[in-house]
């Protein structure tokens, strides 16, 4: 197991390195020159050249990469070109807000997903099962941005129960007013819940057919006890793996959801940076997001290996 984890860690380190080269390489060829963005519409070539010089954009690309990469390793993510402030704190603040939203959504996905999955499995082929199946099918078919807008329309504009976007004033020690989390969290939950509930349902069904469950039933244990103590415990193992993967998808979904709900998190920060061609900010945000994604995948791999000793040695078959 330790060898396997070490192997995976090594692979991740390599991937992160290649990724940093890729991120830097791609963004550095950005044609919409940041110096032009700073100088504005009246820019003349000499003004642009002066700004480029100041920013070190004339240095060879590998020098620029080294400057950036060594900084990142020291924990210095660079200086935002447009905002002229360190990228680190900017990202940290945005990430804290995204993490709160993602955390709430994650808990909802986990709890509701498992509950729905178990209910569907226990009431297999009933109306409830079908309803859950339709519900989750809708979840993966409706784009987050549309679902978000429908929620805003109903709960913020017509019913006026909840704010339509933003984060409000800090409350309860959080940087975000919890009321502002409800709609975006529902949106994310809806989009992701299908994974968890479907997998839980199928592994539940499998577990209920297994010998030990049959045996438990034969012993005359109450059905609810059988479900809870025997089937569920075994069925949840793959679900846990899928939850780790969902962290990655949450990160993808959050870019769109933050846009819909004007939520100033990491996704919005990235889009803001792209619009303004703020290289260091783009590079750092993508690197951070990709690192989180990789880590979530790593955890998923390790959990999977832990629960399925067969593949522990060597990589899973492709």
């Amino acid at each position, binding site marked *: 197991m330790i060898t396997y984890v070490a192997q995976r860690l090594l692979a991740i380190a390599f991937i992160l390195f290649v*990724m940093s080269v890729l*991120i830097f390489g791609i963004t550095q060829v950005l044609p919409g020159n940041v110096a032009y963005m700073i100088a504005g519409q009246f820019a003349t070539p000499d003004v642009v050249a002066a700004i480029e010089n100041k920013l070190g954009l004339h240095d060879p690309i590998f020098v620029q990469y080294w400057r950036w990469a060594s900084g990142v390793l020291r924990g210095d993510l660079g200086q935002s070109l447009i905002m002229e402030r360190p990228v680190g704190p900017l990202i940290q603040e945005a990430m804290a807000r995204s993490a709160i939203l993602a955390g709430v959504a994650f808990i909802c996905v986990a709890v509701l997903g498992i509950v729905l999955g178990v209910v569907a499995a226990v009431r297999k082929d009933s109306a409830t099962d079908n309803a859950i199946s339709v519900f989750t099918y809708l*979840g993966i078919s409706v784009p987050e941005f*549309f679902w978000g807008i*429908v929620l805003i*329309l109903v709960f913020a504009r017509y019913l006026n129960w909840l704010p339509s976007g933003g984060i409000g004033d800090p409350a309860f020690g959080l940087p975000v007013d919890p009321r502002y989390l409800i709609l975006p969290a529902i949106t994310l939950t809806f989009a992701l819940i299908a994974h968890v509930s479907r997998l839980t349902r199928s592994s539940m069904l499998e577990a209920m057919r297994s010998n030990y469950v049959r045996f438990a039933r034969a012993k005359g244990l109450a059905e609810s006890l059988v479900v809870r103590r025997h089937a569920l415990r075994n069925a949840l193992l793959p679900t846990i793996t899928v939850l780790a993967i969902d962290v990655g998808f949450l990160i*993808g979904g959050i870019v769109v959801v933050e846009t819909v709900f004007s939520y100033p998190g990491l996704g919005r920060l990235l*889009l803001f940076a792209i619009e303004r061609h703020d290289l260091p900010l783009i590079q750092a945000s993508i690197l951070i997001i990709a690192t989180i994604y990789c880590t979530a*995948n790593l955890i998923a791999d390790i959990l999977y290996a832990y629960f*399925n000793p067969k593949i522990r040695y060597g990589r899973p078959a492709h």
Partner: protein
Amino acid sequence: MAAPLIDQDGLEAPLAGVTRPRLPRKLVVGGVIIGILVVLAALAPWIAPYRFDEMSLLKRLKPPSAAHWFGTDEFGRDVLSRTLLGARLSLLMGIGATLLSLVIGVPLGLLAGYRRGRFDEVLMRTMDVLLSFPPIMLGLLILAVTQPALWKAIIAIGIVYVPPIVRITRSVTLDLVNEEFIQAAHVRGDSTRYILFSEILPNAWPPIAVEASLRITFAILLGAALSFVGMGAQPPSSDWGLMVSEARPFVDSAPWIALAPGLAMCLTVIGINLLGDGLRETLDPRMRSQRGA
């Protein structure tokens, strides 16, 4: 984008878990939805009652009526006509990007599975790197470097979905290379190209087709998400993601502008998902046996 299915190593896509023996119905319903959609998209310029960019101030923000079934937007453009034309863009995005990922991914996967060795190793590590980006992030990274445009979004999405195609192709190829008829071709001295495309591919395509059909919905959803955040199709085009995005300021005064393309999008994705599920059940023997259990 809505959550893609899990394509992690060894994990069964959870869609498989719920499919019950309703195979023909899914295929039929999905097929009918998509069939109608494709016909509408193909005929859009002729059946749309107005030009998609025809503007009129007198008619702006009008609710649905006999003249404008889905109402008009802030420029007095007919929402129905725009939604119809938008179907073309969505399908183009989904199918175009998927084809691109097939064109790049299938030959690479075949070669990797057939050749093995260093080429395989390097390729698969490269794919690992690509897979280490959340899909939308890789799309944004590619689009961040250029001015956004529809065709660039298609290319970006195509690239995003190369790794899963490479993986599935490679794994099917790995199973096939040891088959006698491939060995025989090898002994006969057939060219690699011939073996890959004329011997292996014809036997490897069903799982690839299933994978590709799933990719189309992801590609459509990812494309819509990119357009929605301003990184895909550009105004005045009537891409659905863009239409919903542009309709946001009017969401309470004129909700029909957002609802029409949004619902069209949902219907499309549901249709393709159903079709893909049906296809998967028909083509993939593994699923079939599992479902019966």
